[in-house]
């Protein structure tokens, strides 16, 4: 029983990583209706920027917010330069574009900062929380950051005009344009926000998994699993989904033999397929209804 509780708590703390990434995935999905396969690599690049700033002697929190700002702008630039011209292109062109973006970013990061593994500092320290070995201060801090992010997003979407406009242009671009919303800029804004959230996720994840150009592939897959489980259109659901995926992964790794460390990504695969087949909308997402 003690082992069980221990694993659940450990699962929740890894889950906060996935929750963070899932939040970024949902953000871009709400804004553009696509899943960005380059999301993980974009977050990785942002984290490298933060690492560089910190190495240059910038204090942690200054570097933190500076990185978020840079990522926000970079996200908007990427949308304007690369994806806006493809507005009406078929979905496959978008997927290929994401792939191109992914290889460019990975290669550039490897070129600039090389492929060696780097440590990334944690603002919360790595000491165990309250002297218990179950959860470290950084993991607790990461959960708090994720929840703050979620709350901020909730208020943004619920109580600000821009948030409302963003939702409107995602829901019904034509009507949104008719009431005077600049739909195209709303999409760019969505990209900016998603990139900024990805940057936060990257900076929170990096102290745990270490910094290197390929650090996000596995995590992105779990992030997808979390986002799908919670419902791709629901930020709150994505965070909860991320936590659940973390717990399931840990419990399955502990109690089901064979799986152990070897098959962890297969769990993500199973979760994604099970959810999509049994409840395609996820736990909190809206089921998509098509008019025929």
């Amino acid at each position, binding site marked *: 029983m003690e082992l069980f509780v221990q694993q659940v708590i450990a699962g929740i703390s890894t889950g906060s990583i996935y929750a963070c990434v899932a939040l970024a995935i949902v953000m871009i999905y709400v804004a553009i*209706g*696509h*899943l960005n*396969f380059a999301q993980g690599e974009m977050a990785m690049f942002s984290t490298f920027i933060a690492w560089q700033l910190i190495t240059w002697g910038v204090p942690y929190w200054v570097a933190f917010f500076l990185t978020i700002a840079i990522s926000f702008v970079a996200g908007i630039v990427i949308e304007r330069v*690369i994806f806006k*011209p*493809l507005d*009406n*292109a*078929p*979905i*496959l*062109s978008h*997927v*290929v*574009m994401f*792939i*191109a*973006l*992914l*290889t*460019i970013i*990975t*290669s*550039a990061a*490897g*070129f600039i900062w090389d492929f060696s593994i780097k440590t990334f500092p944690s603002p919360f320290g790595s000491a165990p929380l309250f002297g218990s070995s179950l959860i470290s201060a950084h993991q607790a801090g990461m959960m708090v950051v994720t929840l703050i992010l979620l709350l901020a997003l909730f208020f943004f979407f619920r109580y600000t005009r821009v948030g409302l406009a963003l939702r409107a242009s995602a829901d019904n671009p034509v009507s949104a344009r008719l009431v005077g919303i600049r739909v195209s800029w709303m999409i760019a804004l969505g990209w900016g926000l998603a990139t900024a959230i990805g940057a936060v996720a990257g900076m929170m994840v990096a102290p745990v998994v270490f910094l290197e150009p390929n650090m996000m*592939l*596995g995590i992105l*897959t779990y992030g*997808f*699993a979390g986002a*799908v489980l919670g419902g791709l259109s629901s930020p709150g659901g994505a965070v909860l989904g991320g936590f659940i995926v973390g717990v399931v992964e840990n419990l399955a790794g502990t109690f089901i033999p*064979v799986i152990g460390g*070897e*098959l*962890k*990504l*297969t769990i*993500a*695969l199973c979760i*994604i*397929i099970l959810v*999509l*087949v049994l409840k*395609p909308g996820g736990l909190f997402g809206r089921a998509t209804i098509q008019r*025929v």
Partner: protein
Amino acid sequence: MSVNLEEAAEHPAVAVDIETRPLGRDRTLKILFGILIFVVAIALPFVTKSFFVFQVTMVMIYAIAILGLNLLTGFNGQFSLGHAAFYAIGAYTAAILMDKAGISYVWTLPVAGIVCFVFGFLFGLPALRLEGIYLALATFALSVATPQILKLSPLEHWTGGVQGIVIMKPDAPFGLPLNQDQWLYFFTLIVTAIMFWMASNMLRSRTGRAMMAIRDNPIASRSMGVNNSLYKATTFGISATYTGIAGALGAIVVQFVAPDSFTVVLSIALLVGLVVGGVGWIPGAFFGGLFVLFVPNIAESISKGLSGAFYGLILMLLVFIMPTGVAGFLALIRHKVLRRGA
């Protein structure tokens, strides 16, 4: 024509009309092309270096795999970012059969095809419920998980774990005066020809029309009496069969299988090859195969450290310049030439 391409982006059915016949319906042109390709294909291994013969063999293998993906995506409208999994299953089936059971390489191909059909069909069943980006996501997860499954310790006795399996290169049969590379080239050429012939026949049959009807309008096809679920799952199986046979050929030609050759990178390469060649145009698979094999080398020759970045840039340029792949590009040129002639 540029108007047509824009229109094509919005209406997949129009795009298909433009893309599937970039050379038009001119028979003499087709026959001339056919004879030219046949002569070049036969002469090639005798006039070029061994390594180049190997490369062309790999192009054909990738072309078969991309054709498999094209049947699924181009003709049935289902996405897949997971075809590396089926390629891996085919490769491992061939390698295990040759290594453990001592079966001749020729007979591993049909077995790999059947095994992959079963896996593909089974994966196609949950895929029935998924569309567009969701299917891309599920298949993406499949190909991320594949290397881990192959490394699994209970299977290690069969799969050789991380080390993989090394297999022997076959000699030319019947005392033909060919070296191993040349023989494998001709063997692959024969298999490729059969596979492409079968695919184009199937697409012209009742089955093929049903597949395309589902792609263009699932509701209409159902009301015409097509069993959508059965056809979609079967197409997934057939697509996996093609990719699996390509995988088996790949294992025989490369003489080696290991989990890390079948990562998500391979799935992505196949999808990229499909888009580059032209979605829904069968010969496009060869252009896709060329792209998959040669463009990473070109990118590397531009800059070693930034090869990935140049690969990505080439990809982006292609999407902008030839949004409908080589097929659309050829169609465009043909239209220009015809207009000038008229």
